[in-house]
């Protein structure tokens, strides 16, 4: 099932990349997965929709953060990665940060951005906090950095239906999940040159649904 979805996402990414390079000024609503439910989204549709997972991890201040109950009812972007990453992780977080500045301030203020480290050895609370600060300048959204034991991180990834990270967290899913106020994720994103636009667009679609 996961493999199926991975393939769909990869296909979606290829299609998106194709759109981006064709120079189309205004991307149309997604036609990535016809019949797969991506309908109004520019990201890749998730079928079936995934319920907001419940798990409790530790925030950068060392306090427990019950993800399910704290973020319930809020648009939420969930991403697993690690800070000692020069490429996809900071690019994705930077894209989120910029996308949030392109949506109405009231929507941004309601939105949670949750980064969960897959590098349980090196990513301490202070390291994650300092890293996240690169992306939160002027941000209205709630940025949260979470960590836990390997078992807790594995369980959180399983609950969010993303593939488990390996290699000390450095080989990890690059999937960015977007949960809506209805507590379901119907769309996810992979790194792309149009990621900022996709997030800004789909966040507003999800919030209005």
């Amino acid at each position, binding site marked *: 099932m996961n493999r199926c979805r*991975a393939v769909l996402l*990869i296909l979606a990414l290829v299609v998106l990349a194709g759109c981006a390079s064709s120079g189309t000024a205004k991307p149309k609503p997604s036609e990535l997965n016809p019949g797969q439910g991506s309908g109004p989204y520019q990201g890749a549709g998730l079928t079936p929709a995934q319920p907001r997972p419940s798990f409790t991890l530790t925030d950068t201040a060392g306090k427990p953060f019950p993800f399910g109950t704290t973020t319930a009812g809020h648009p939420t972007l969930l991403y697993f990665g690690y*800070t*000692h*990453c*020069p*490429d*996809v992780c*900071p*690019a994705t*977080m*930077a*894209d989120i*940060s*910029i996308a949030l500045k392109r949506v109405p301030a009231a929507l941004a203020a309601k939105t949670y951005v949750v980064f969960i480290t897959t590098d349980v050895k090196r990513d301490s609370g202070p*390291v994650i906090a*300092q*890293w996240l600060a*690169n*992306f939160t300048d002027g941000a209205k959204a709630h940025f949260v950095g979470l960590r836990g034991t390997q078992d807790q991180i594995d369980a959180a990834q399983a609950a969010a239906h993303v*593939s488990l990270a390996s*290699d000390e967290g*450095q*080989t*990890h*899913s*690059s999937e960015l999940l977007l949960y809506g106020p209805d507590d379901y994720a119907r769309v996810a994103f*992979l*790194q*792309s*040159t149009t990621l*900022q636009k996709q997030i800004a667009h789909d966040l507003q679609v999800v919030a209005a649904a």
Partner: protein
Amino acid sequence: MRWAAVAGGVAAVVLGSAGLVRAAIPQHESTGSGAPGTISVSGAYVRAPAPPTDAAAAYFTVYNTTGQDDRLTQVVSGAGATSTLHVESGGSMVAAANGLVIPAHGSVVLSTGKGHVMIEHLFDKLTAGQTVNLELDFRTAGPIDVVAPVIALGAPAPTGTAPSSSGAHS
């Protein structure tokens, strides 16, 4: 060409004095980018690291207009102690231990999510507006130097089409 070499030397001195390029790479003469029968490099840039992470990623496109495959064997950077070529494989980034084949009459793009040169143990802070010297070593074509601008974390990749391989300045 002479002017370019002089300019390159001046740039290396200026950058060196800023502590950016500890091992300034000599600017080689090379054939013009895009000319038939050459290996050329364009669109090089470096994304600034996100502190406290002490690692940055360099990106570029290599064109091979020769009729023979070539191989990018290693990349050396003036910005950090180690540079490792990473390419996407099966959904994850892996070190390209044997380098990267640049197919005859083909090109290879290193871009976010597809591949990069991971520059670690930076000699100094990297911020947007600076430049980084990269030496790309090819098995057949030999070394090619490029000057890669540093872009901010959230900035889009530069889209300029001007080749950044040395010797191609006019």
